[in-house]
C-alpha cells in the first residue's frame, strides 16, 4: 500500500508538529509514508468563503491520485475533499475532474479513520500521562461522522486521564473566515467553549483539527488559562519519556 500524507496547508505552514506526529505514528505502525511536495491546500477556505477554485481541486487530485491511501490529520480538510471537491469540479463543468476527484476523495482518510478503518487498530502504543479532554470538531462529528474513533484511540493511550468535555458537540465558533467576518458571534461561541474546557479541569485540550485548536488555543492563551492544546496526532505519537 502506497500511503501519502496530506499535511494540510495550515499544518505545513504553522503547526508542523502535528504533521511530524502523524508521520511518527504511521511509521511506528509499519507504514512507509510519502509526502509529495507538490501538495498545497484542499481549497476549503476558498470554497466556504464563496470562491470555488477548480485549480486547487485539480492540484490535489493530480498530486494524490497515484496513491492507495491518503492520510490527513484534519477532519475538516478531509470533509472538504470528500464533500466538496467533486461539486466544485462539476460546478466548473469538468465532469472528468469530478470523477477523478471523487475517486481520490474516496481513498482520502482522516487520521483516526485511517488508523481504525484501514489499519484496524485502536491502540497505537502511545503513552501520555496527562489529564486530557477531547473536543469533537463539527466536521469530524457531523460531516465525517467519526463517532467514537478518536476516543477509542485516546482511551488506549497509556497513562492518560480522559475527561468528558461538557457540551462537547457545540461548535467552538471558528468556522474559517466566519471568525473574521462575524468576529463577535465567533468570540461569544469561543467564550462558551473555553468555559466548558476550563470546567472540565483538563490540562490538555485535544482535537482532530488544528484550525479549531488555533482558535480555542488562541483564546485560552489570551486569558492565560494554562491549558495546552494538542492535536490528536501529537498525543498518539507520544511514547515513554518523550513528553
Amino acid at each position: 500500500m502506497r500511503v501519502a500524507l496530506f499535511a494540510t496547508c495550515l499544518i505545513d505552514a504553522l503547526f508542523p508538529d502535528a504533521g511530524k506526529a502523524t508521520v511518527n505514528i504511521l511509521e511506528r505502525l509499519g507504514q512507509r509514508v510519502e509526502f509529495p511536495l507538490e501538495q498545497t491546500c484542499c481549497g476549503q477556505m476558498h470554497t466556504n468563503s464563496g470562491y470555488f477554485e477548480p485549480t486547487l481541486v485539480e492540484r490535489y487530485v493530480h498530486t494524490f491520485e497515484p496513491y492507495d491511501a491518503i492520510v490527513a490529520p484534519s477532519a475538516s480538510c478531509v470533509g472538504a475533499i470528500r464533500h466538496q471537491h467533486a461539486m466544485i469540479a462539476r460546478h466548473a463543468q469538468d465532469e472528468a475532474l469530478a470523477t477523478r476527484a471523487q475517486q481520490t476523495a474516496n481513498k482520502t482518510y482522516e487520521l483516526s479513520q485511517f488508523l481504525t478503518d484501514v489499519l484496524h487498530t485502536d491502540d497505537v502504543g502511545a503513552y501520555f500521562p496527562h489529564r486530557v479532554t477531547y473536543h469533537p470538531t463539527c466536521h469530524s462529528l457531523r460531516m465525517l461522522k467519526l463517532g467514537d474513533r478518536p476516543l477509542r484511540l485516546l482511551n488506549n493511550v497509556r497513562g492518560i486521564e480522559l475527561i468528558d468535555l461538557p457540551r462537547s458537540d457545540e461548535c467552538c465558533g471558528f468556522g474559517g473566515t466566519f471568525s473574521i467576518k462575524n468576529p463577535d458571534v465567533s468570540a461569544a461561541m469561543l467564550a462558551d467553549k473555553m468555559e466548558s474546557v476550563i470546567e472540565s479541569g483538563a490540562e490538555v485540550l485535544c482535537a482532530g483539527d488544528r484550525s479549531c485548536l488555533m482558535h480555542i488555543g488562541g483564546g485560552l492563551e489570551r486569558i492565560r488559562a494554562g491549558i495546552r492544546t494538542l492535536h490528536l496526532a501529537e498525543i498518539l505519537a507520544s511514547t515513554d519519556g518523550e513528553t
Partner: protein
Amino acid sequence: MTSGDVIWTDDPPFAQNAKQAVENSQLRRNVRNATATIRQRRAGLVAETPDWQELRHAGAAIKDDVLHHLDTYLSQFEQNATANGAHVHWANDATEANQLVANLIKQGGQTEVIKVKSMATQEIGLVEALARQQITAHETDLAELIIQLSHDKPSHIVVPALHRNRAEIRRIFLDHMPDAPTDLTDDPHALAEAARLHLRRLFLKTKTAISGANFAIAETGGLLVAESEGNGRMCLTLPETLISVVGIEKLIPTFKDLEVFLQLLPRSSTGERMNPYNSIWTGVTRHDGPRNVHVILLDNGRTNALKDTVGRQALRCIRCAACLNVCPVYERTGGHAYGSTYPGPIGAILTPLLVGVEHAPQLPFASSLCGACYEVCPVEIDIPTVLVKLRHDAVKAKSHKSGDAAFAMAASAMSGRRRWTAALRSARLMRLIRHTAPPPISRWTRTRDLPDPPAEPFREWWRKR
C-alpha cells in the same frame, strides 16, 4: 418583485446587528434558555422514535415529488378546493397578495380582522399593508400578540416572542393591553388568562379571519393548521369569512402524507408527540364554520428559488424551526440580527433564495457551517451545502473587492510548489504582525492570540529528514 417585506434590513448588516445582540446579556439568556428547553424535548422524542431517519427520508421524498410536479399538484389543489366551495386566488408577489386580502375584507364590509399565526403573512407584511388601507388585523397567537402590542418583530419561526421573558411580557401587557388587570403578575397562568380575556372579545365579534396553512392537500383541496393554543381554531371556525394565504410549496399530494408530516412537525417544532390542535378544513362545510372560504396561493420568489438546483431543497421546509433551536449562531444573536422574516439557518438560505442573493448577501455568511441544522432538519435540507453555494453566488453578485484580491492571492500562492514554498517562508513574517495586527487580523487578535510561527514549515523538516 421587491425584497422589502421578507427582509427588513440589510443595513446595518448581520455582523453589526449580531454585535449588539451578543452584547445584550438578557437577550442571550432568554434565547439560550428557550432554545435549550425545546432542543432537549425534541431530542428526547426523536430518541424514542425508532424510524426517525426513515420518516425524514419520507418527508424529503414527498416534498421533492411536490416540487418536481408543482404545476400538477397546484391545479389539482385548485380544482378540488373549488369543487368544495372555496375560492382560489393566485398571487405573484407580496403586493398582489396583500391587495387581494384587502379587497376581500372590504367586499365583506369589514375594517377589523383576526389572524392566525402565519409565516406567509409575516413574509408579505400583510398586517402593515392592511393598516395602510385602514384595516386593523389583530394577531391572536399569544406570542404574536405580545409582538404586535409591543411594536416588535418576531425573532423565531415557531416561538416569535422567544426573546422576551415573562417579566418583560407582563410589562408589555400592562403598557399596551387596555383590558389587562392592573394587579397582573408575571405568573404564566395569569399572563395567559389576561390574554385569553382580551382575545375572547375579539373572537366573538370579528367576522373575518386570516390564516396561513402548514399543509395544502392536493388530493382533497383541504388546508391544515397545526397550533398549540386553540386560538387558531377559534379564528378558523367562528368567523363568516376565512382568507388563507398559502405558499405554493406548502402542498402535499395526499391526505395520507400527513401521516409522515404530523409525526415530523410537532416533534421538531415544539418537542411534542402531537400538536394540541390540528385543524383541517376543505372548502365550505354546510352549517359549520366559515361560509366564505378563500385561498390565496402565493409565489413571492418561490418559483425563483425552484430554479436553483442546489437551493431548491429549501422549499421542502415545513417551518419547524428545529434548525434555529440547535444553531450556535442563532443562540448567541437571536432572530432579529438576521433582519428577515425567516431567521436562523433556514432564513440564511431561504431569504436569499426568495429575494435574490444580491438583496441579502450577508445572510449566507451568518453561519460557522457546523452542520447541526442539517442533522436535525426533518426534511433533510442540507443547509451547509446550500449556504456554501449561496456564498458563491453572493461573491459573484457583489464584487467584494478586498475579498477577491485576498483569495486570488492565496489561490495563486497555492497554485504551485515553488510559490507555496516561498509563501511558507514568508509566514515567518507573522512574528512582525503578531503584536501590531492590522485589520482584518485585528478581528482575530481582539479575543485570541495568534499562533507563534514555527522555526520551519513542515516541508522543510521533511526535506531535511
